[in-house]
């Protein structure tokens, strides 16, 4: 059974393997090897028999082929209503066929399934809300991704991403030292403006343990500073952890369940070690989904909860504004037409729609906030979710997918889009680059920092 040196059924285990894969620019050799990769049908069928239980089997069985899910899928709408983009068709023609054929499928089929799973579905779960039978095709695509990953049929970047988590326990090659040093360096940069600003590391029994996205450490260190400053201004008893600080999971996008488990257990170990009252994660959707919503199940926690109660940044911020821990200067509220992007991963998939609206009520001058249509749990994916943003092979399809969000934003007339999610933020940045509609986009933290009132005792002495 031919397996490539880079494209094979074995996950990345060592830093050397990871570097070798990274050095294959754009996955040129990797995708060549993919064409020769065999399907281990026995293993595929054995896995299905073990893991495809009554929920998914029933979904596949009772689908009435009614097509009511078609209009719920932004990829169907944005691809000229191509019937092959109907969610039920997409899952029936991939997972449905694999189950029907008891795993006897070939390389060409698996490559088709791979493209369907990663370029025709972002696992936004919107279709599940529009199916009369309650069939959630996003969940099934997540399951299909796991089957494909185990067979080696996974986009190059996501094999790397999952490998990063396996090697570094982070989505990028950011070490624990890098994280702590970057956070502390950022605090030093700002301590003249905010005297007493410090970054508590490994403080036990703090009220808040703050976890981040490794991209912030590597590319957006000012985000760490902003988080630290806002906790400082709010008078929070908070801490970071020197290990287990990465909240994201590209392994989830890849369907590498073993790596998902490794990653969340690493974060949970930090919670158990430091015993914070709560964990607050950064402004990231999939990170929250991975660590707070799905993670407990990967880690085998029967109550479905992480070791410490865990909330999203928007929940903390809404609470801080509500309780007056952070006060906004009314003169500095946003006075341009502004809209908010509802991230699928914590709005539809964790019910946080009210928290973001509460924040808006504090930071936007009345009359300037315009809702997208549809919105809240019915909002469309940004166009780049589920790993779509990061896959070079499917860049063309991803750019087409951005059109939905572009048109939603244009319809609001907003000049500023608040996107408290890394994936959405990236997608909106990319759609501006691609389609140039003249909008600005932002996380919440930098906006807050511009309008928050610094209490007198925290001001620099002049």
């Amino acid at each position, binding site marked *: 059974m031919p397996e490539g040196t880079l494209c094979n059924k074995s996950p990345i285990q060592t830093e050397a393997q990871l570097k070798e894969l990274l050095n294959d620019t754009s996955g040129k050799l990797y995708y060549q090897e993919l064409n020769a990769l065999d399907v281990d049908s026995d293993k595929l069928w054995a896995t299905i028999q073990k893991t495809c239980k009554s929920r998914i089997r029933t979904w596949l069985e009772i689908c009435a082929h009614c097509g009511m899910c078609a209009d719920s899928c932004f990829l169907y709408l944005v691809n000229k209503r191509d019937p092959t983009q109907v969610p039920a068709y997409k899952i029936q023609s991939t997972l449905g066929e694999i189950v029907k054929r008891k795993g006897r499928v070939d390389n060409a089929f698996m490559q088709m399934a791979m493209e369907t799973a990663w370029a025709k579905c972002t696992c936004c779960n919107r279709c599940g809300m529009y199916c*009369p039978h309650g069939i959630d095709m996003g969940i099934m695509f997540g399951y299909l991704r796991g089957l494909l990953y185990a067979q080696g049929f996974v986009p190059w970047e996501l094999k790397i991403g999952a490998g990063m988590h396996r090697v570094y326990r982070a989505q990028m090659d950011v070490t624990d030292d890098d994280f702590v040093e970057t956070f502390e360096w950022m605090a030093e940069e700002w301590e003249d403006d905010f005297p007493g600003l410090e970054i508590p590391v490994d403080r036990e029994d703090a009220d808040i343990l703050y976890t981040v996205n490794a991209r912030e450490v590597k590319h957006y260190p000012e985000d760490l500073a902003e988080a630290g400053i806002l906790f400082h201004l709010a008078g929070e008893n908070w801490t970071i952890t020197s290990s287990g600080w990465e909240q994201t999971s590209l392994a989830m996008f890849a369907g590498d369940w073993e790596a998902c488990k490794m990653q969340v257990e690493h974060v949970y170990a930090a919670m158990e070690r430091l015993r914070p009252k709560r964990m607050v994660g950064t402004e990231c959707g999939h990170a929250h989904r991975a660590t707070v919503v799905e993670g*407990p199940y990967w880690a*085998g926690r029967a109550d479905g909860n992480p070791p410490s109660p865990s909330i999203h940044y928007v929940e903390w911020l809404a609470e801080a504004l509500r309780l007056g821990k952070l006060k906004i200067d009314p003169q500095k509220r946003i006075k341009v037409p502004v809209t908010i992007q509802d991230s699928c991963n914590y709005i539809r998939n964790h019910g946080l729609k009210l928290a973001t609206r509460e924040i808006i009520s504090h930071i936007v001058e009345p009359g300037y906030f315009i809702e997208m249509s549809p919105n809240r749990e019915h909002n469309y994916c940004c166009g780049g979710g589920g790993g779509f943003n990061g896959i070079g092979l499917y860049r063309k399809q991803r750019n087409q997918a951005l059109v939905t969000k572009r048109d939603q934003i244009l319809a609001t007339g907003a000049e500023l889009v608040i996107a408290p999610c890394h994936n959405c933020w990236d997608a909106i940045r990319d759609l501006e680059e691609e389609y140039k509609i003249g909008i600005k986009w932002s996380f919440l933290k930098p906006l807050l920092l511009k309008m928050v009132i610094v209490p007198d005792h925290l001001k620099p002495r002049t």
Partner: protein
Amino acid sequence: MYQFLVGPMFWLSIAICLIGIIVRSVGYVRGLHWQLDRVAYRAHPRAGIKGAARSIFFWIVPFGARGWRAQPFMATCFFAFHLGVVLVPLFLSAHQMVMRDKLGFSLFSLPGGLADGLSWATLTAAVLLALRRIALPEVRIMTTWRDYGILALSVAPFVTGLAARYHVGDYSFWLTLHILCGEALLIAVPFTRMSHIFLFFMSRAQLGMDYGIKRGGMKGHHGLAW
């Protein structure tokens, strides 16, 4: 033939249907797996029951879910069809008489005119649903002969029943065929996609529990706006 159909075959078809439903329902619940499904079913029973009830409620109320409101034609056909296929077999006065005969008691009966109206609405909706399958590319692409088969199986008792009711030709022929079609449908329930008669509730409850327990149902407001 008639005696066989209203005698042993009547009981056999009902038994296969009911036992099949029970066996498959138990199998469904036993096949749920908190860790594989990633839903802590047992840990949060209140949130789970609330989520399940909401998920079923909004979808069985006409135009109750956003999905129904978004597709008024489909919703109208769907409810016209299902109102008839649920109410007429259970509460047609002739069927209630059979029930009294077989079980010794009966429930309420639909007025004749209403039963006629519901039956015709079901048939009309079935035709429209079939045409919809042909007309819309997004439905056509997935449609197989099985989909038409299920539709035919569902309306066969109505076609034969109405033919008997209006005495089109030989009454006893249509009546025999009607009973045969009805019993075939009962037997098909556990073994075909007709299983959605009960699996609809199972599946909706499961997704409702998923949303109620894991995906935000415990976040302190009413939960997902279906």
